């Protein structure tokens, strides 16, 4: 074959492999979904995508598969950049055999995963697949298993991002679950282990796909998703923004940006109400101390009684964790402990310092909480904070009572710096409860029990509901005015830059999963 002919052959082969089948492309568009290639182009920097394994073919010869040619075997893999950050990416193509996963498809994914791990760059997976390629039988399951295994090996080594842009059901959904961040889009994402059909035949319960595992359900009820968007375009903007906050891998720190002061109109003194039983939005506090008042919230819709997310201080990424008095009074419960615990472990794995803001009445009492295992789930938060060896700085804004005080990155769990505002109340329990217990006998015996009780509550409030007892014992390093918060945080972060902490040698800990 002459050289011009070979060049022509290449052009034809390339076009055949990349051009979408018109009918399936139309179906995809009718559902408001982009093509797999369009998605990659939309996420990555212009012209930065470099594709590999375009000509990979399946080897299945059962059930008529030998006659089927599947371009790229239904998945597109390659590398590129997002705002200059290198990433490895794969996108399942629903227009090719429903994006079904066979062995060749899976091997393309595991190959790009292996690249990402070796090169130390983040991995982005776009899931849009009908599930296992049934004609391939156990080989298809083998493919899933090999992906899960690598997801686990890569955990804490490179950041892993999953974007669910179509169905992601059965075994397939465990790959996203093993990754660090899951993005979902309204009406497009569907995630479940067993679908409505199976649930109906086995249990007789009827439920729609959307109610069972739609985007909103996963972002708000189950906590499986971390970011929720109305459209694919909005979702891709979220992905790009997130990538700027996280490092390439666990040996690096996230890129530094130019420091910008917070927007001045936020005044800490005006955010917190004078009465300790009045709620406020703790995110106003986070924005008041963050560079440019920018805060990227993670899992904003689920367990909103705790707020977690990324911000920058002095141009460097920090992970912020804060109780949210506006939702359920900011209590810790099963879901909020789980949410914060996971976030803390991500930050610790990827060298992101933790800044914690405390204002909570404690753990949520209740039969459903106890029976749901709040003991075990609550322990995740203690474990995650204690285990984290990145710089840990805590600011006690207002209430810090009982187990909640200890759990929210207290000095006792290894906080490097603990600051408290003058309105902080640090005690074993609220004054009402404390007075009722300590003076139980006296109250009962008093001539006017209610007046005596009120007096004792007042006494307890004055003595213990302040930051000064904790400060006198060295559990709080400094009592600071709210307007000094950013200055103290910037200084503490700057001097903790090279913090090292020795830990006993071990294979790994055994957290209360």
């Amino acid at each position, binding site marked *: 074959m002459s050289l011009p002919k070979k060049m022509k052959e290449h052009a034809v082969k390339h076009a055949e492999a990349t051009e979408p089948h018109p009918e399936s492309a139309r179906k995809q568009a009718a559902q408001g979904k982009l093509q797999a290639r369009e998605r990659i182009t939309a996420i990555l920097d212009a012209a930065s995508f470099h594709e590999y394994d375009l000509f990979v073919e399946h080897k299945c010869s059962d059930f008529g598969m030998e006659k089927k040619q599947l371009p790229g075997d239904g998945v597109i893999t390659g590398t590129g950049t997002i705002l200059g950050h290198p990433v490895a990416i794969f996108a399942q193509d629903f227009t090719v055999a429903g994006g079904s996963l066979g062995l060749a498809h899976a091997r393309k994914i595991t190959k790009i995963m292996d690249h990402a791990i070796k090169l130390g760059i983040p991995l982005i997976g776009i899931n849009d697949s009908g599930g296992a390629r049934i004609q391939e039988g156990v080989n298809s399951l083998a493919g899933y298993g090999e992906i899960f295994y690598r997801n686990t090996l890569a955990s804490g080594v490179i950041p892993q991002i999953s974007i669910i842009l179509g169905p992601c059901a059965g075994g397939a959904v465990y790959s996203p679950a093993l990754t660090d961040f899951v993005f979902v889009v309204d009406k497009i994402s569907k995630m479940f282990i067993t679908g409505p059909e199976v649930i109906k*035949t*086995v*249990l007789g*319960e009827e*439920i729609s796909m959307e*109610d069972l595992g739609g985007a909103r359900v996963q972002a708000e009820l189950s906590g499986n998703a971390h970011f929720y968007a109305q459209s694919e375009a909005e979702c891709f903007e979220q992905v790009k923004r997130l990538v700027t906050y996280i490092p390439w891998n666990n040996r690096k720190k996230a890129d530094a940006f130019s420091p910008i002061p917070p927007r001045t109109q936020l005044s800490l003194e005006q955010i917190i109400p004078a009465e*300790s*039983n*009045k*709620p406020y939005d703790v995110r106003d506090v986070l924005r008041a101390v963050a560079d440019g008042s920018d805060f990227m919230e993670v899992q904003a819709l689920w367990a909103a009684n705790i707020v977690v997310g990324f911000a920058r201080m002095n141009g460097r990424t920090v992970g912020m964790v804060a109780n949210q*008095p*506006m939702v*359920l*009074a*900011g*209590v810790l419960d099963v879901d909020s402990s789980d949410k914060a615990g996971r976030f803390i472990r991500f930050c610790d794995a990827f060298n992101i310092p933790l800044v914690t803001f405390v204002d909570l*009445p*404690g753990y*949520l009492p*209740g039969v*459903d909480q106890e029976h749901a295992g709040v003991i075990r789930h609550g322990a995740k938060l203690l474990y995650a904070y204690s285990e984290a060896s990145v710089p840990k700085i805590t600011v006690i804004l207002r*209430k810090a009572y009982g187990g909640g005080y200890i759990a929210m990155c207290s000095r006792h769990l290894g906080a490097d710096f603990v600051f408290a505002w003058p309105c902080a109340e640090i005690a074993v329990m*609220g004054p*009402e409860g404390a007075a009722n217990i300590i003076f139980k006998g006296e109250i009962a015996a008093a001539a006017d029990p209610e007046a005596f009780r009120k007096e004792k509550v007042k006494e307890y409030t004055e003595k213990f509901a302040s930051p000064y007892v904790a400060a006198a014992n060295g559990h709080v390093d400094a009592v600071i005015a709210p307007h000094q918060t950013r200055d103290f945080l910037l200084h503490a972060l700057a001097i903790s830059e090279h913090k090292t902490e020795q830990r006993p040698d071990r294979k790994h800990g055994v957290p209360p999963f």
Partner: protein
Amino acid sequence: MTTRHTITLNDAVYETTFTKKFAHRKPFVPKDPRRLTAVIPGLILDLLVKPGDRVRAGQGLLILEAMKMQNHISAHDEGTIKAIHVAPGDTVTKGQLLVEFE
């Protein structure tokens, strides 16, 4: 006394017993956006709206004191108040119906 049941999974029939939790499960009912229920047990301190009022999304509806906090319960969406099922001073349980929208 446990009762034996059969379930069919992938064409195979299995004999099994149900756990108490499974036997008492409630069928899934999608959340009705027209019914506002209490997310936490507590005490109604104040009502900020009355039946017939038109409310904006995010507008405060009532104050529910729980966990030492005066929680502001606000409207998820705009709408008109059809009925209010609680009064200041009422103690409410988790899941109790507070406000109905038209």
